[in-house]
Structures are given as C-alpha cells and as structure tokens.
C-alpha cells in the first residue's frame, strides 16, 4: 500500500534530497492512537471518581465514619474500573493491538493486577470500618453483619476471594511453579470474580441506585467490556475458523525438532500481508484441541484461485510439551484460527530502512516479514543467528528472498563466548563487532528483533547503544 502511494505520486521529494518516508504518517497516526489510549485510560479512572463526586460524595467527609466509607467507595470504584480496563486490555481489541501490540497490552494488563487487587481490598476494609463506626461495631462484626444481612453481599465476598486467588496465581513467581494449564484455568475465574462482584454494585452501592445517570454509565461500561470480550475473543475466532476452513495438509520436517505445518483453506488472501504477526492455532485433535499455539506464518499464503483457496504454512520447534505433539499431527486435522495479532509487521514501520534480527525459531517471523514488508533494494538488512547453519531455519528461502528483494543477509553461527553478555557468536564478539557493524545506517532504521528473551535483550541493548530510539525498536516476546 505504501509503495503504491509512492509510485502514484513520484514527484514528491524533500528539498534535502532524501526520499519521502511513506511510513512517517502511519507512525504519527500510531503515536496519536497511543496517546489517545493513554488519555482514555486516565479519563476512565477520573470518570469513576467523578461519578462519586457528582453524587455529592464529598459530603461524606463531614464525619469520621463517613470519611472511611467515602474512601472505601472511591477505592471500590477505581478498583472496578481498573478491572474493566484489564479485561479490555486482554480482549485483543484491534485498536489496542495495532497501537501498542499484543505483548505490551498484556504486560500493562499484568501491571494493573496488583493495584486493582489492593484497591478492592481497601474497598472492603474501609467500608467495613466506616459502616462499623456508624453503628458502633468493630469492622469484623460489621463484615459479618454485611455478609448475613445485606442481600448480594455474600456474592461480593466470594468475588473478593476469587480476585485474590486470581492475582496470587498470576504473579510470575507463583506461575512458574504451576503448569500453564492450571494458571489458565484459574485465570478463567476472573470472569466469575467480576460477575459475582456486579450484583452488590448495583443493589447495595448507593451511587448506582435506580434512576441515577451513574447507574447507566456503569452499566454501559460493564456491558461494553463484556461485549468486547465476547466479540473479539469468541465470536471473531469462531467466524474466522469457519471462514477459512483450515485443515492440516502435511507436516514437513525442516531440521531436528523443527517442523513446518502446511494447511489448506479458503479465502487465504485475507490472511496475506500479515508479515510476522502471530495467529493462535488450535489443532482440533484429541488431547490437542484445547491448547492454543501462538505462531506467525512462516510464509505468505499461497492461493491458487480467486476464491482464495490455497495453502499457508507455520514453522514450529519443540519448545514445550504442546509443541512436540505437533510433529505427529495427522493430515486432515481441522484447525481453529484466531488473529492475526501483534505489531511485528509493516504497520509498526516508521522509517524507510529496516533491520531484521532473528535467532532460532524466531527466524520464522523474520522470514514472513521479509517477504511482505515494503523496502527499496539496499534498504534492508537481515541477520540470522543460530548455533550452527542447520539452526538457521528456512535459511535457503531467506537467502532467496534477500536476493530477489535486494536485502543484505548475514549468517551468524557459533556459540556465545562464556561469561560475556552478548548476542553475537564468539568469533564476532572477539572481533569487536556490534550491531552497527552489520548495518551502518541502523540509527535511522526500524529494528525488528525476534528470538529468546535473554538474547533479544542483548540485541536491544546493542541497538540502543547504536542510537536506535525506543519507537524504532519492534520486539515481540514469544516465550510466554
């Protein structure tokens, strides 16, 4: 699209002589969206507190008991608002995904977990103290009285326990000790936690009494969040699955422990151009169907006819129990698909020049990006890293693509030097090479990095040292 823009208007050139950067406008729009999302985030929190202010909430501070209750109400409003924002961040909404990327959205989602929990806990404690003081009760007796006497409150207590369970199991340290499936199942309890918290907000919460506009606002917020989750996480994947009718065509061994899975399907032209963006695949075979696999396409879909009938391909390495089963997939297995998600694609570009660095199985998204992202010959550098040549998966295809499109290709193989933080193999590190040694124009390039996280962080450090700014760096975690 962007290359077309250039050829349609070839006369536009900067007075300085440099080519017009077709990605500049796209980059500006993305920044604007990011800023807009930031504003919306804070505005929604302010809005939650404003609901209470608009109800004359400040009057509560006239008495000590009222002050506790008032603070408790504010904590509850802000906490619930954060919970809704967390759900929206995890809803895979295209606007968010195309602005900050899936991994950053989830990272932010994780960061909000603890503040949300603390606010909700504060809500419960402060209200118990405030109500208790108003009646001359200690907070514990008041909590018991609330549980027993006020309708819907027992649900709120259950909700609180569920929230604690969800946040505690989600904390990374704990997550490591449990299998992913357990963590995932507990995470589904979030929905139960939110649902059980809703009744008391509308029946006991004074703010959302019938007939108040606050009630409508809050209801709209909750319903919109639920609708977004339902649409983007359930309806769209189901529709996409039926639309593309993917079935496994064959499984090809690429290297030891690495297989390419070819799938045939319909309307594959709609999936073209996704570059290194990832899809979530579920192979509908016994014991496999419930396990989601995030992989990007390792090649642009090939379609044979106008109906988009054709094949596409993903390339997978045995990283976990789930991935290893994929090598034995039977042809004909139906495949459910969601996506594409993420920003490892042309839509993240901000410059003419592009540098792509991939290691191990992280080479496959680089392969897909290289195939589809626009650049003029000489404006792209591809660096592949592996222990040996055989670990540079799809190396032949990438070499071929680089020849055709005019990109510079480097193969960096060999072990890391011991005890040194570097992403380079020993001989290159000894020779004093840096990222800038491979592409002198890197400071004015988009840098895409995909590979194991420790390695990737070393690449990113090197890139920053070479003068690459944060907004030029496109790194997507894929070991989650």
């Amino acid at each position, binding site marked *: 699209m962007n290359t077309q823009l250039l050829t349609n208007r070839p006369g536009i050139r900067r007075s300085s002589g440099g080519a017009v950067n077709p990605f500049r406008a796209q980059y500006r729009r993305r*920044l604007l969206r*990011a*800023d807009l999302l*930031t*504003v919306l*985030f*804070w*505005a929604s*929190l*302010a*809005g939650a*507190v*404003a*609901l*209470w*202010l*608009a*109800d*004359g*909430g*400040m*009057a509560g501070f006239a008495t000590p008991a009222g002050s506790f209750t008032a603070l408790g109400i504010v904590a509850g409003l802000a906490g619930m608002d954060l919970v809704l924002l967390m759900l929206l961040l995890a809803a895979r909404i295209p606007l968010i995904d195309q602005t900050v990327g899936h991994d950053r959205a989830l990272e932010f989602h994780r960061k909000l977990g603890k503040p949300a929990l603390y606010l909700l806990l504060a809500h419960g404690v402060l209200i118990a103290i405030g*109500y208790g003081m*108003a*009646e*001359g*009760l200690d907070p514990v*007796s008041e909590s018991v*009285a609330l549980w027993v*006497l*006020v*309708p819907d409150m027992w649900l709120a207590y259950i909700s609180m326990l569920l929230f604690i369970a969800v946040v505690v199991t989600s904390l990374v340290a704990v997550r490591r000790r449990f299998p992913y499936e357990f963590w995932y199942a507990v995470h589904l309890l979030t929905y139960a936690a939110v649902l059980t918290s809703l009744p008391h907000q509308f*029946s006991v*919460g*004074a*703010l959302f*009494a*019938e*007939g108040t506009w606050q009630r409508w606002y809050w209801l709209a917020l909750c319903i919109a969040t639920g609708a977004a989750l339902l649409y983007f996480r359930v309806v769209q994947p189901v529709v996409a699955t039926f639309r593309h009718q993917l079935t496994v065509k064959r499984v090809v061994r690429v290297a030891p422990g690495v297989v390419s899975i070819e799938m045939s399907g319909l309307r594959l032209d709609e999936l073209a151009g996704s570059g290194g963006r990832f899809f979530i695949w579920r192979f509908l075979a016994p014991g496999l169907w419930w396990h989601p696999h995030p992989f990007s396409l390792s090649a642009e879909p090939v379609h044979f006819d106008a109906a988009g009938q054709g094949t596409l391909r993903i390339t997978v390495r045995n990283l976990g129990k789930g991935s290893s089963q994929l090598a034995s997939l039977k042809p004909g297995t139906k495949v459910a698909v969601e996506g594409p998600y993420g920003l490892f694609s042309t839509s993240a570009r901000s410059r003419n020049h592009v540098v792509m660095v991939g290691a191990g199985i992280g080479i496959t998204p680089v392969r897909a990006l290289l195939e589809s992202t626009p650049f003029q010959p000489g404006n792209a550098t591809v660096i592949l890293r592996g222990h040996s040549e055989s670990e540079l998966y799809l190396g032949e295809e990438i070499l071929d693509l680089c020849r055709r499109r005019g990109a510079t290709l480097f193969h960096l193989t060999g072990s890391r030097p011991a005890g040194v933080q570097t992403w380079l193999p020993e001989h290159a590190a000894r020779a004093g090479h840096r990222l800038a040694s491979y592409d002198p124009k890197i400071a004015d390039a988009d840098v895409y990095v995909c590979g194991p996280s420790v390695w990737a962080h070393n690449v990113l450090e090197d890139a920053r040292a070479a003068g690459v700014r944060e907004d030029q760096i496109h790194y997507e975690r894929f070991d989650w």
Partner: protein
Amino acid sequence: MRTRAAVSAALASAGILIAGWQSGVHVADTGSSVASAAAGTTGATGSSGSSGTSSSSGTSDSTASSGASGAGTTGASAKAVGTYPGSVVQTRFGSVQVQITVQAGKITDVTALQLTDAERKSVQISNRAAPILRDEVLQAQSADVQTISGATVTSEAYLNSLQAALDAANL
C-alpha cells in the same frame, strides 16, 4: 510525544474530576433538601423524641431504646383508639421510626415518622419500600411480613419499630 499524552491525560482527568465535583456540590444541596422534605412530610408529629443521638448497640436491626411515648398513647387498654409510636431504630443509613393508628383493635394506618435518609439512595429506597411495607402490614395486621428485597435494612428497621408500637398498643 509522550509529554503530549501525559499533559492531555492530566488535563482530561482534571476536567472530569472538577466537573464531577462541581455537579456534586450542587447535588449535595438538592439532595439534603429532598431528604428534609421527605422528613417533613412524614414526621409531622412531635413525638420523635430521642432522634438517635446515642450510638446504638447490636447489629443494624437492633432496636434502640424507645423514644418518648408521646402523642396519643392514651392509656393501655387493648381496644383503645389511638396512635402508638414505635421505637427509634438506628441503621447505618439513618434512623427509622413508625407510628401506628389503631381502631377497634385493628391497625388502620402506619405512618413513617423517620426513614433511612443518610444518602440520596437511602431516601429513594425508603420512598420505594415504605408504601409496600405499609400495605403488607395493614393486610397482615402484624409485623410478620416479608422484607423488601433491595431494602432489607430499611425493612427490618421498619418492622422492628412497628413491633415495638404493636407491643405498646398491646396488639
């Protein structure tokens, strides 16, 4: 660019908070006038003596000591015609006190002298619950009626105060 986001977010949030606060000041005034108006219509008698200044004991439905048994408690004869105020019951949403009118041993009317009015929500709840409770009590001729869902605290306080009034009327 990040500064742009920070400044816009700060301005937007401040604007929303100030707008909320301003309309809140306004609502607080009208809110209290609604509450006092409600109190004015119900509490026309002068009998609500102890308006619950002492913090009550027990749970939300506990009864405080009865107010001055003023008004029309003429004697204690079972068949007497008159009005009997119930006890003042403290709840976290305000005090509740009802008064019954008895004629020939039957409850002919229940008047709310005070209803929960701590917040606007409480006033709404009271306005909704009181007429229903009154009808049910008149029908059942006792305090043995269902509480109104969503107004449990108000209902229980109402019925407790009513029971005290029934006791006073020897019904």
